[in-house]
């Protein structure tokens, strides 16, 4: 492991342990950075210690105690904390505590704005700097800075606790954590940032180790089964060179998807199963479309949404023909959520093209291009438009 990997891995763990001890996210963040800076100074000279995590924790704790001593507001708490330190000092060789699950639930607390939860997870658990988080969510650095400061202020002042919810609270609380991780993954996927998608996968693995829940497994499976196709993008699924797909990742994702759907099912597991069917198909036409339509029916029952209906319509188009799919899409035309959703226009365009209605298809592609968010998406749609207009 190189120094940078050690820091990525240890940052979240260190921060979680320190938040637990001090009950103060700002203080924990400051001394975590200071400990890492100290490591950057000492390790190149003295060598990486045998237990880098323990070294960082000891250093950070010392810095926190120094800081508390200087700060009169915190002084009263110090005596109490020091008792806890001596008790918490793990004997050499014993593994350090892992309190990251608490941190996941704090960062993705429902009392925080949904858009801020993924940002906090990246910041606290992945060890991203604020500019890195800003880049991940494609917003200016000052905007992200403000969002993170506001969210941390709420955690502190409204006293959002640092705790794992009781089992009976999990059905209400876990979806927020899963959604935060999935938002990181989809941001990375949309921007074709493999490093960000990799980070989301890494976080999902950590979460699953700490909480081996069915839907956590489903989420990890879904990420792997989508991420396995990364090298074949940005082509549409039907045009992708399937030899570029990552077979090992597909095997792992499929095995996890199966586990996520044994003895019950949730929305992430079902989406994973849909992607497993795509990934295991010999080619686009040879995909098990009836099974995919059936899974979309299950998904629509669990989480009804216009986007699920859109994807189901595209699968029906493959099972029953483009005309059947187009009829379903046109029935969704008045959905407010789809009106400005470029994949809806693009899906219509594709089906119109398949039915030979190229003038209408071109118009639908133009609408999609006008709505697309990123340059990559626009370029891709322009190529589809050019193909329909016979210009390529």
């Amino acid at each position, binding site marked *: 492991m190189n120094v940078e990997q050690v820091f990525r891995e240890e940052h979240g763990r260190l921060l979680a342990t320190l938040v637990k001890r001090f009950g103060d996210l700002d203080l924990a963040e400051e001394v975590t950075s200071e400990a890492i800076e100290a490591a950057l100074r000492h390790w190149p000279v003295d060598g990486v210690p045998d237990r880098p995590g323990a070294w960082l924790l000891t250093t950070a704790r010392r810095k926190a105690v120094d800081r508390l001593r200087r700060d009169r*507001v915190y002084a009263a708490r110090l005596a109490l904390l020091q008792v806890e330190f001596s008790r918490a000092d793990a004997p050499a060789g014993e593994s350090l505590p892992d309190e990251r699950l608490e941190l996941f639930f704090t960062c993705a*607390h429902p*009392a925080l704005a949904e858009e801020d939860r993924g940002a906090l997870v990246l910041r606290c658990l992945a060890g991203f700097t604020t500019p890195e988080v800003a880049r991940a969510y494609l917003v200016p650095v000052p905007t992200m800075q403000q969002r993170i400061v506001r969210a941390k202020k709420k955690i502190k*002042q*409204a*006293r*959002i*606790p640092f*705790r794992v*919810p009781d089992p009976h609270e999990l059905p209400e609380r876990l979806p927020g954590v899963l959604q935060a991780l999935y938002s990181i993954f989809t941001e990375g996927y949309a921007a074709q940032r493999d490093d960000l998608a990799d980070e989301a996968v890494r976080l999902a693995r950590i979460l699953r180790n700490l909480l081996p829940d069915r839907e956590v497994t489903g989420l990890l499976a879904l990420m792997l089964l989508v991420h396995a196709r990364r090298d074949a993008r940005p082509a549409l699924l039907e045009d992708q060179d399937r030899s570029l797909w990552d077979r090992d990742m597909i095997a792992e994702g499929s095995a996890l998807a199966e586990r996520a759907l044994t003895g019950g099912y949730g929305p992430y597991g079902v989406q994973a199963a849909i992607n497993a069917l795509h990934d295991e198909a010999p080619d686009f036409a040879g995909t098990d479309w009836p099974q995919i339509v059936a899974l979309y029916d299950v998904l629509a029952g669990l989480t009804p949404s216009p986007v699920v209906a859109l994807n189901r319509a595209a699968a029906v188009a493959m099972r029953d023909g483009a005309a059947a799919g187009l009829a379903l899409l046109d029935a969704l035309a008045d959905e407010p959520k789809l009106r400005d959703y470029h994949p809806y226009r693009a899906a219509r365009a594709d089906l119109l093209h398949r039915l030979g209605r190229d003038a209408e298809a071109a118009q639908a592609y133009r609408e999609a291009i006008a709505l697309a968010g990123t340059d990559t998406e626009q370029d891709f749609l322009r190529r589809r438009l050019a193909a329909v207009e016979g210009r390529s």
Partner: protein
Amino acid sequence: MKYMLLIHAAADQQSSCTVEDWTTYEKEMRDAGVLVSGHSLADLVTATTVQVGPDGRRTVTDGPFAETREVLGGYNVIDVPDLDAALEWAAKCPGSRDGGAVVVRPIAEFDF
């Protein structure tokens, strides 16, 4: 840590909660030792607004009247360890049902 639960009733919807629901809720809070204070407010048509201008003159007006869908109907101040505990009590409040809503606000604490 103290939180105020601001209980908003839906102006356009009849609440299905009975007087017993409210007394049970209040008793539960008392028994748990979390209730600091709480009151229901009289009907909104009885409200009066006072404002003092830069010249020190005061303006007294009738109202306000329900311009939004939700009307503040009462409050409780509770003392609990953290926001999760406050949200539990808010969810138990009869005022959180039937289109009503309970807004949870931490009471500001100042270090002097």
